[in-house]
C-alpha cells in the first residue's frame, strides 16, 4: 500500500494528459465541500429525540453550531500543521489520508447520533473530519500548479470551485437520504451520515488515485517561461519555515483574512438580512432562493477570477476585489433606503464572486511570491486566516446588528453600520495587498538547499 501511495509511483508517464488531474482534484473538493451544507442537518439533529419537535434532552442549535465551527477551525489548523508533510509525502498519500479522515469522521459522527452522544459528533465530524477537510483541500494545490505553470490561477480555481460546488450536491443529497431513512422513531440522520461517508470515501479514493505528478523539469509543449519577468513572479523558492519570517506571508494572510471576513459575514446572515431589509417584499422561500444564488456566484467567481488573474496578475485582481467590493458594500444601505431588491441582490452576488475568487486566487499568488517548491505547505499556513475569518465575519455582522437593534435602530437599517465596517475591513485588505513586494533575496533557498530538499523527498519515497 505504501508503495502505491509514494511520490515515485505517481510520476506521469510520457503521453499523460494533464487535463486528467483537475477532475481528480475536483472529486476530492466536491466531497469535502459538503461542509458548507452542514446546516441542513441542524433541524433534524435538534429533533433527534423528539423526532417531530425538539424536546428536553434534544441538542440545542448553539451546541450543534460547534460541530461545523470545529471542522472549519481544524481545516485551517490541519492544513497548517500537515502542509509540509504533504509536500514530501505527495498528493496521493495526502488524498488517501483525507479520504480516511473524512469517511471515518462521518462514521463516528453517525455513531454519535445513533447513541445521542454529542462529543462523538465533535470528535468525528469536527476534529477527524476537519483533518480530512484540511488535507483534502491542500492536497492538489501544489500538483496543479506544477502541471499548469502557464495557467496557475485557472488550475487551482477549478479545484477550489469544487469546494463551493460540494455544498450544491450535498444539500439535496442529504435531503433525499434523510427522507429515505426517516421513520416514525428516527430522523434518519445517522444512516445518512454513514451513506454519505461511504460515498465520499470512495469518490475521494478515486480522486487520490487519479493524481499524477509531472516529471522533473516538465513543461507544456509549446510553452516557454516568459522571458520578460514580472517582479512579483519569482522563479526561485522560499522554504516554508523561512516564508513565515517574511512580511509577504503576513500581508497575504491579511489579504485572505479581510476578503473572507467581509464575504462570510454576508453568507452567514444572507437569508435574515434580505428579509429584514426588505420586510414584506421578500418571502422566506425567496430568501432561500437568494442564498442558493449566492452559492452559485461564489462558485462561478472561483473559476472566473482565478482564471482572469492569469492575465491581469494576482495583485491587480485583489485590488479589484477590495475596491469594487468596498463600493458595493457601501451601496447596500442605499439599496435598502430606496427599497431596490434587484440592486441589493446584484451587489451581494458580485461581492460573493469576489469572496470565492479570493479563495481560488490565493494559491497562485503564493506560488508567484514564494515559488512552487513549498506552495502547498505555505498555502496550508495561510489558510489559518480562514479559521479566524470564519469567526470574525459572522461575529461582526451578528453583534453589530444586535447592538443596533438593542439601541432602537429599526431592523431594516440595522445592517447599515455592518456594511460600513465591512468596507473598513476591505480597505485594510487593500493596503495590505498594496504593500506586497517581491521577497527579499536573503529569504530564497540557495541551489544547495533546494537540492538537499529534493534529495530528502527522493529518499523519503524509497
Amino acid at each position: 500500500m505504501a508503495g502505491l501511495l509514494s511520490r515515485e509511483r505517481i510520476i506521469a508517464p510520457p503521453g499523460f494528459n494533464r487535463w486528467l488531474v483537475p477532475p481528480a482534484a475536483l472529486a476530492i473538493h466536491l466531497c469535502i465541500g459538503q461542509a458548507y451544507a452542514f446546516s441542513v442537518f441542524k433541524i433534524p439533529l435538534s429533533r433527534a429525540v423528539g423526532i417531530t419537535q425538539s424536546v428536553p434532552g434534544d441538542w440545542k442549535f448553539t451546541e450543534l453550531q460547534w460541530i461545523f465551527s470545529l471542522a472549519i477551525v481544524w481545516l485551517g489548523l490541519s492544513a497548517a500543521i500537515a502542509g509540509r508533510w504533504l509536500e514530501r509525502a505527495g498528493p496521493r498519500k495526502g488524498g488517501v489520508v483525507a479520504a480516511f479522515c473524512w469517511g471515518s469522521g462521518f462514521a463516528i459522527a453517525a455513531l454519535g447520533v445513533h447513541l445521542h452522544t454529542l462529543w462523538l459528533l465533535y470528535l468525528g465530524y469536527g476534529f477527524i473530519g476537519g483533518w480530512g477537510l484540511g488535507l483534502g483541500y491542500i492536497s492538489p494545490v501544489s500538483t496543479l500548479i506544477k502541471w499548469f505553470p502557464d495557467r496557475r490561477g485557472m488550475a487551482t480555481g477549478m479545484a477550489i470551485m469544487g469546494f463551493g460546488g460540494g455544498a450544491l450536491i450535498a444539500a439535496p443529497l442529504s435531503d433525499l437520504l434523510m427522507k429515505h431513512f426517516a421513520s416514525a422513531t428516527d430522523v434518519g440522520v445517522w444512516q445518512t451520515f454513514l451513506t454519505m461517508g461511504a460515498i465520499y470515501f470512495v469518490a475521494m479514493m478515486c480522486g487520490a488515485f487519479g493524481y499524477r505528478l509531472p516529471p522533473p523539469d516538465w513543461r507544456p509543449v509549446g510553452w516557454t517561461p516568459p522571458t520578460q519577468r514580472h517582479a512579483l513572479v519569482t522563479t526561485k523558492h522560499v522554504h516554508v519555515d523561512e516564508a513565515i519570517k517574511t512580511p509577504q506571508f503576513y500581508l497575504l494572510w491579511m489579504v485572505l483574512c479581510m476578503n473572507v471576513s467581509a464575504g462570510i459575514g454576508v453568507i452567514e446572515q444572507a437569508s435574515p438580512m434580505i428579509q429584514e431589509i426588505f420586510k414584506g417584499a421578500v418571502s422566506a422561500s425567496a430568501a432561500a432562493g437568494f442564498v442558493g444564488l449566492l452559492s452559485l456566484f461564489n462558485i462561478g467567481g472561483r473559476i472566473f477570477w482565478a482564471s482572469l488573474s492569469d492575465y491581469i496578475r494576482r495583485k491587480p485582481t485583489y485590488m479589484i476585489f477590495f475596491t469594487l467590493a468596498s463600493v458595493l458594500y457601501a451601496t447596500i444601505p442605499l439599496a435598502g433606503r430606496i427599497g431596490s431588491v434587484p440592486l441589493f441582490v446584484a451587489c451581494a452576488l458580485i461581492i460573493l464572486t469576489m469572496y470565492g475568487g479570493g479563495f481560488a486566487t490565493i494559491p497562485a499568488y503564493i506560488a508567484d511570491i514564494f515559488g512552487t517548491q513549498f506552495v502547498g505547505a505555505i498555502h496550508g499556513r495561510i489558510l489559518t486566516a480562514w479559521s479566524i475569518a470564519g469567526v470574525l465575519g459572522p461575529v461582526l455582522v451578528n453583534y453589530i446588528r444586535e447592538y443596533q437593534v438593542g439601541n432602537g435602530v429599526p431592523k431594516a437599517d440595522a445592517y447599515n453600520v455592518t456594511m460600513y465596517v465591512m468596507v473598513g475591513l476591505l480597505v485594510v485588505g487593500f493596503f495590505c495587498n498594496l504593500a506586497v513586494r517581491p521577497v527579499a533575496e536573503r529569504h530564497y533557498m540557495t541551489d544547495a538547499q533546494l537540492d538537499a530538499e529534493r534529495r530528502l523527498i527522493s529518499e523519503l519515497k524509497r
Partner: protein
Amino acid sequence: MGMNHAGPGAPPSGSSWVRVAVAWTLVGLPLLWGVFNTVKKAMALFR
C-alpha cells in the same frame, strides 16, 4: 501554445482524451445536478 502536453516531447495520446472526457463527466454530472437543484430553488426569488 499547446493545450496540454505531458512529458518533454510527448504530447498526450489520442485515447487519453477519451479518459479526459469520462473523468470530467464523472465529476461534472453530480455538479450539474447540484447546480440544477439550486437554480430551481433560486427561481423563487424572481416569482
